[in-house]
């Protein structure tokens, strides 16, 4: 790929607005978690022990839709999602599967609101991928039953070098 000085890639904040992300998350909660289950946009402090689920979007914009919350909240979310079908004891697989599916639903709808065509990856669960470009992030902080949860739509690619940078000392272009 030829890097043309001054070229830009669209950052997520230019492609989707926070209200849309909120609507997507809100509808996902109503349908999957329960129709009287609200998520309130509000800052909160995530606990030290968190679990994340994410899906990758590849297309005109490439990045991940990452859901992060405390482990206990993730377990409670799983129980709420499964309702009567929830087993007595939840194991890690149950929780990973449930929050993975929430990430899939939120991610799929985010993808559909972005310029396409894009592909959606299968959900992954674990420690959240690092933010590569702080300018290419759309972050939604919410409280569910008073507990913090973060939806982060973050670009996979590092920022493009700005035009005044000269990576080659003799000024040769790529």
């Amino acid at each position: 790929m030829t890097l043309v000085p001054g070229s830009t890639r669209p950052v997520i904040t230019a492609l989707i607005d926070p209200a849309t992300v909120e609507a997507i998350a809100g509808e996902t909660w109503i349908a999957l978690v329960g129709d009287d289950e609200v998520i309130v946009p509000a800052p909160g402090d995530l606990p030290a022990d968190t679990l994340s689920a994410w899906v990758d979007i590849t297309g005109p914009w490439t990045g991940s839709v990452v859901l992060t919350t405390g482990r206990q909240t993730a377990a409670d979310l799983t129980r709420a999602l499964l309702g009567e079908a929830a087993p007595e004891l939840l194991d890690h697989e149950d929780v990973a599967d449930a929050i993975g599916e929430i990430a899939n639903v939120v991610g799929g709808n985010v993808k559909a609101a972005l310029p396409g065509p894009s592909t959606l990856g299968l959900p992954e669960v674990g420690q959240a991928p690092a933010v590569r470009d702080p300018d290419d992030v759309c972050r939604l902080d919410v409280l569910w039953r008073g507990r913090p949860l973060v939806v982060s739509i973050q670009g996979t690619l590092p920022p493009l070098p700005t035009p005044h940078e000269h990576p080659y000392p003799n000024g040769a272009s790529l």
Partner: protein
Amino acid sequence: MRALVIDDSRAMRRIVSTALEGFGYETRQAGHGQGALDVLQEGYAPDLCTIDWNMPVMDGLQFVSVVRANPAWRALTLVMVTSESEQGQIVRALAAGAHEYVIKPFTPDALRDKLALLGMLPQGVAL
């Protein structure tokens, strides 16, 4: 009536199966398109398949194409249940032979409405 619920998420398979059982269906599950084909080839003859799009091994669109290409499975009603929700994706799925399309997130009532459109609600289920 019988259904085959195809989704790589166990939680979603449980949610959809529970909803369908509430409507009077008997259900079986598969975690991807190939697993679902295996179930069909073993002789389970569902009336309805609910199909997620993004799955490992064989995705939902491929499954729909394979089913549609096989005259033995002509009577199968195929309903996508997926978070893929661009206009273009819905068109692709319908063109490949899916009969209906439920966008995730969905409520059990939404699923019921779609089945009613297809005449696929077992007798005696109140609308």
